[in-house]
């Protein structure tokens, strides 16, 4: 079973900074991070017209499906996927086996440049997630929901 995924403000800022730099250095339109269960962690770039929730869910589904394919042929997973479109392309990579980094780019960039920049960003992101995981495992880093009452839950359904 995977450990509980938690995100704090400090790490979120660090992650966003890495993604922003990646978007800039790779000339990418959009960069986003998703956990393997399909939850969006961060998104950078022209995302206002984009359904990022759906993108996150489908990306995770995509990685899960190709991961299944990999196992069938005796691979652990395919850590990089590339989808080429007429205008925009998708570069998807798995970082540290737990989060998925997606870069959307067009002709202003190239696959080679994106791959190069993604590699550098991946190492940095990996370190941040390592730290995050340790933080979560420290006893006392309890759930903010430990103190919710049955009434709180009831209120959600009161309408």
């Amino acid at each position, binding site marked *: 079973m995977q450990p509980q995924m938690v995100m704090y403000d400090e790490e979120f800022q660090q992650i966003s900074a890495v993604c922003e730099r990646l978007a800039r250095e790779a000339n990418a339109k959009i960069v986003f991070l998703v956990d393997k*269960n399909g939850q969006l962690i961060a998104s950078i770039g022209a995302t206002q017209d984009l359904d990022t929730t759906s993108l996150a869910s489908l990306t995770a*589904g995509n990685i899960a*499906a190709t991961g299944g394919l990999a196992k069938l042929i005796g691979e652990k997973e395919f850590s990089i996927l590339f989808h080429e479109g007429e205008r925009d392309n998708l570069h998807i990579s798995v970082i540290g086996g737990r989060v998925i980094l997606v870069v959307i780019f067009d002709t202003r960039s190239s696959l080679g440049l994106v791959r190069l920049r993604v590699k550098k960003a991946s190492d940095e992101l990996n370190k941040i997630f390592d730290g995050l995981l340790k933080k979560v495992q420290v006893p006392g880093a309890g759930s903010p929901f430990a103190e*919710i009452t049955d009434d709180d839950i009831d209120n959600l359904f009161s309408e």
Partner: protein
Amino acid sequence: MSFINYSSREINCKIVYYGPGLCGKTTNLQYIYANTNQNAKGKMISLATETERTLFFDFLPLSLGEIRGFKTRFHLYTVPGQVFYDASRKLILKGVDGVVFVADSQVERTEANVESVENLRTNLAEQGYDLDKIPYVIQYNKRDLPNAASLEELRGLLNPRGIPDFEAVAPKGEGVYDTLKAIARLILTELKKGT
């Protein structure tokens, strides 16, 4: 596995609708999608075959409101029910927080229901989950059909532990929200325990 985001003050949970082929998993999601307030739902995605059978999954994101300043979001997924899509079903169970088992009440589908519960138990175990320990509710769908088995019979077969269960007619919405509320409640109660 729920995702607690302190930065955006959000909590995200994953609910999976499981059950035999044509039992009404997608219909549950479609009803919820059609009857939920515009600002509380995202887009519904269906990865289906040309004959509208679920190929990989359906996905519907919902916001339920706030608890203690945290937005609660639920991601609803269905699995493909047909037996030969087992590899896909396993993938969708990854990181699940709660399961809704949709049973087809028709007498002819008794065996399919039982097989599907067994399959659910096996696939969960592969991911390290125990069906007897995670949030889990059952919905007996298609109660309006003349060939529906009795409630006692279905309960005896599918719900020996007496977990929350609901009768439903999914296209009309009967029992659909009751089922959703019950699983959401169980998931939040589980979070409260801090596990």
